[in-house]
């Protein structure tokens, strides 16, 4: 049935149980630490707390979107529409406040509701009509990019808006000059999203349902779990996160770019996989995704600190990292199969 996506489900592996399920996330964290140590060892000023803080500032939108993607991937699906939904929600925020004169708070609320509803609609199409997630969300990718370009094919700037100024207002932790750092409000939004996602995934029925559906949809159905609600729910969560990502992007740049978030779905998927989640679903952690986003952020930070490497090395290294983590997962899964037989 609809679990037969494009991919073969690997045999049941130790990635689901025991301590070895922490190996991929452990590897990600270790990698993060090594990268940080390499950075502080080689470059001046790399050790300043603000460098780490900036990882969160620059990647706040990606982090939020990757968290939503984690829900979808844990349930065994995929969401290609997030980049376009993000651009669409940033553009609608800008257009509603600047052109239509709607108060910013209302505009943001409308955008968030729209993102959630459209995500739920995608999930309903996927579940009830048995359309593959890849195709259903591909339609979303085209649809929202098209709608964004129809609203405006040029950048829309949001100026002199108190609500949108709030997003980049910084809270200082200690004096920035001597070892302190400051964080804008968007980082707290991202942090709240991660925290809520963590609690939902690990301590609620919905969260356990997500893991169960990702592990085996048929077993989840047999166990009497609400498969339909869970599958529609994860896409609604992803849609909400993508819309929120767009709002955060509008906060941080105070403008909306019709081509913003192009290819962002790939970054989000890569971050989730580097964070140790299995693309077939059922295994992974939202905190792993945070680590995955940090690895990718750290990578571009190191490249910009070094200056000798060109920007395209970032993509190649992300590809190599993906390869390494996927092979690691395969090795773990194989060794698990051997031990059990």
């Amino acid at each position: 049935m609809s679990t037969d996506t494009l991919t073969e489900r690997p045999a049941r592996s130790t990635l689901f149980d025991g301590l070895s399920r922490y190996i991929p996330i452990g590897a990600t964290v270790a990698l993060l630490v090594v990268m940080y140590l390499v950075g502080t060892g080689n470059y001046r000023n790399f050790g300043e707390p603000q460098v780490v803080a900036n990882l969160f500032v620059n990647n706040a939108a990606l982090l939020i979107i990757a968290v939503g993607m984690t829900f979808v991937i844990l349930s065994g699906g995929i969401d290609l529409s997030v980049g376009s939904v993000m651009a669409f929600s940033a553009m609608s925020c800008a257009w509603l406040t600047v052109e239509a004169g709607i108060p910013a708070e209302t505009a943001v609320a409308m955008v968030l509701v729209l993102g959630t509803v459209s995500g739920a609609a995608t999930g309903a199409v996927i579940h009830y009509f048995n359309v593959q997630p890849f195709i259903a969300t591909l339609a979303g990718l085209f649809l929202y990019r098209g709608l964004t370009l129809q609203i405006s094919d040029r950048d829309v700037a949001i100026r002199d808006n108190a609500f949108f100024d709030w997003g980049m207002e910084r809270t200082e932790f200690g004096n920035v000059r001597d070892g302190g750092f400051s964080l804008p409000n968007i980082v707290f939004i991202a942090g709240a999203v991660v925290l809520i996602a963590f609690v939902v995934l690990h301590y609620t029925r919905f969260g356990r349902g997500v893991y169960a559906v990702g592990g085996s949809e048929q077993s989840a159905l047999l166990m009497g779990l609400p498969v339909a609600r869970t599958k529609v729910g994860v896409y609604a969560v992803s849609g909400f996160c993508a819309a929120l990502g767009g709002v955060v992007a509008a906060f941080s740049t105070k403008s909306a770019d019709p081509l913003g978030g192009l290819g962002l779905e790939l970054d989000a998927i890569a971050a989730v996989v580097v964070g140790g989640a299995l693309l077939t679903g059922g295994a992974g952690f939202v905190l792993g995704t945070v680590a995955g986003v940090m690895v990718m952020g750290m990578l571009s930070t190191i490249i910009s600190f070094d200056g000798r490497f060109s920007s395209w090395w970032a993509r190649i290294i992300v590809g190599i990292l993906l390869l390494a983590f996927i092979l690691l997962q395969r090795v773990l899964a194989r060794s698990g199969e051997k031990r059990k037989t």
Partner: protein
Amino acid sequence: MSALLDRSKSAARAAWAHQYFRRLIWPLGVLLVLIVVNIAVTGFDFIIPSVHDGRLGGAFVNILRRSAPLLLIALGMTLVIATKGIDLSVGAVYAIGAAIACQWIIGRDQMSLGVVFVAVAIAIAVAAAIGAWNGLMVANFGIQPIVATLILMIAGRGIAQLITGGQIPSVSDETPFVELGRGAVLTIPVPIIIAGVVLAALALLTRTTALGMLLESVGGNPEASRLAGIRSKSITVLVYLVCGLCAGLAGLIGAANLGSADANNGGLWIELDAILAVVIGGTALLGGRFFLLGTTIGVAIIGTLEVTIINIGLSSQWQFTAKAIVVLVVALLQSPEFRAWVAKPLRGKRPGGAPSAKAESTGEEALVK
């Protein structure tokens, strides 16, 4: 063995032809409607080819010529999808193929035919090698196709930029290389010839030999095919290799047409268009069945759709929206659940058609299986 195959083939041929026709009739109808709309707006010049400078021209021929790279990629993608796989890296391979050829040519004697041949050969060899790598990852390491090819989709454009050094290499307008994209043989544009030859070769290879059936059996159930004595691993590697090769060839045609290779934007999102074309053509993403002719019609639909939008006076921004609508309509039409849901009120049984009841019934069907 072969006698058995022959008998089952001839017995199934009538049913097969019928099914083939039924699958093709929807996309063919859509294409005809699009063409009729264009003729209504711009007149019969749209469909009737004209000859300019010893080359076929006219709106529809131009659509076909511009769609040739997409057709090549979509044909390779059809075979990959037939084996229940997917290749997301074709856009990146397109960029790499274009980058290699252009970079090789600009550093040497641009007029020399030998240089162009070597450039084309290297580009195609590298593209095929990348495809084989994808295939190895899928077949030998057991990595899901979407993940295995995602790696190169992300890294590939970085590699292409590495090859070009972040520049956009432009070849001279006089080099024989540009003939690949702009030239014509016997007034037929070269891209159309290349795409046509590849289509014919693939169709002959898969439909007159057992290869096509083996492909479908691997897509239907790789483990069962292996037990039945089919070397499913080598077949998997082969289709990804062909897909990579087609993508590289498409990159060459694209680069030749433009006279340059843009590592960032060359072939951007072509993998999505290719998958779209394959799905429009009636090949389900679940594997086990493929329609090369359907894919060709799908490519023609996408190409004509883009022109139609301009012709009927909509802004080019409508392209994405129109594509989204096409994806949704095709996906929903192909979904048996959706058709049942739509047909339910018409039959008059259980009015209202609560979708949740539908979900339970599909669950029960799965249990019975």
